[in-house]
């Protein structure tokens, strides 16, 4: 889902950075407050960061010869809260931008909005909503992870469509085209993201690193 270096016009890159900045600032405040408040916070943060690092490195081949990767951000949203993922996400994005030419420094703001803000908040919202209406914790966590990763890619498609609208059908037409490219890989990938997230939550819960709404 990473938009490549220099691939957004300067004004768009700057605008997305401005959008991301307050979320990152708030996330840093939350992170420092939570880290001081609980002895298990470093472990939760470590698990969240490690899982994001791990999953975003896994290229998944899909139909049509395409490939992409999960994000792993839902787990962190459940364990540490979605605000903190706005800090952990950019660290992974920075690693990939600097060493892998995957994403970029100029598009870090846009990629942060998609992967570290929209994705985790969507996952967290769906997770809470499904549990509130009586869904099983595992179903809530899996559904949240799946919809979160789809939201991430929909955001990237929207960012690209805003920068590169279709000459005939405009931004909406551009969005449909970009989303069509991502949908091929993201739909099966969202199932993988859901399964891996629920499995990780279970493994962590067995070792006492649970979430407030019971084992997921």
């Amino acid at each position: 889902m990473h938009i490549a270096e220099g691939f957004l016009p300067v004004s768009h890159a700057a605008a997305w950075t401005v959008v991301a900045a307050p979320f990152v600032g708030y996330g840093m405040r939350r992170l420092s407050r939570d880290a001081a408040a609980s002895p298990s916070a470093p472990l939760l943060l470590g698990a969240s960061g490690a899982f994001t690092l791990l999953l975003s490195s896994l290229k998944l081949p899909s139909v049509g010869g395409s490939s992409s990767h999960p994000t792993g951000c839902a787990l962190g949203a459940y364990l540490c809260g979605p605000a903190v993922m706005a800090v952990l996400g950019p660290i992974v994005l920075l690693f990939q931008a600097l060493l892998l030419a995957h994403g970029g420094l100029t598009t870090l703001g846009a990629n942060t909005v998609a992967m570290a803000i929209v994705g985790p908040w969507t996952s967290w919202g769906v997770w809470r909503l499904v549990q509130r209406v009586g869904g099983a914790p595992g179903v809530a966590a899996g559904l949240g992870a799946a919809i979160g990763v789809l939201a991430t890619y929909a955001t990237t498609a929207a960012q690209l469509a805003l920068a590169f609208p279709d000459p005939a059908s405009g931004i909406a037409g551009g969005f449909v085209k970009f989303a069509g490219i991502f949908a091929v890989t993201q739909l099966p990938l969202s199932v993988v993201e859901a399964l891996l997230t629920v499995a990780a939550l279970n493994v962590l819960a067995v070792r006492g690193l649970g979430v407030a709404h019971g084992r997921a």
Partner: protein
Amino acid sequence: MDARSVGLVACAALILAAIALNTSETGVTGDADERAQALATALAPGYVPWARPVLEPDKTQETVFFRLQTVTGMVLFGVVLVIAGRRSRRGAPHASAARR
């Protein structure tokens, strides 16, 4: 760990193994991001990226860095599990989390 959890973890392990095996064959070709870039170029033929990546690794280096990222993530996650397991056995309190 109950039977359902074991099943889920086994499922996850199978998926990870399948991805890892497939990655070595496909590399990063056919990447959805690259296809999106190609579409952007087609929609705006005159657009020229205004910045270049800091480092542009070749395919081998890229694979090495991706593997490095995978291994780092796995090791860190493993370390967390080991520490949490030890704390859990000692009966140390763990804070739950569902924070905003």
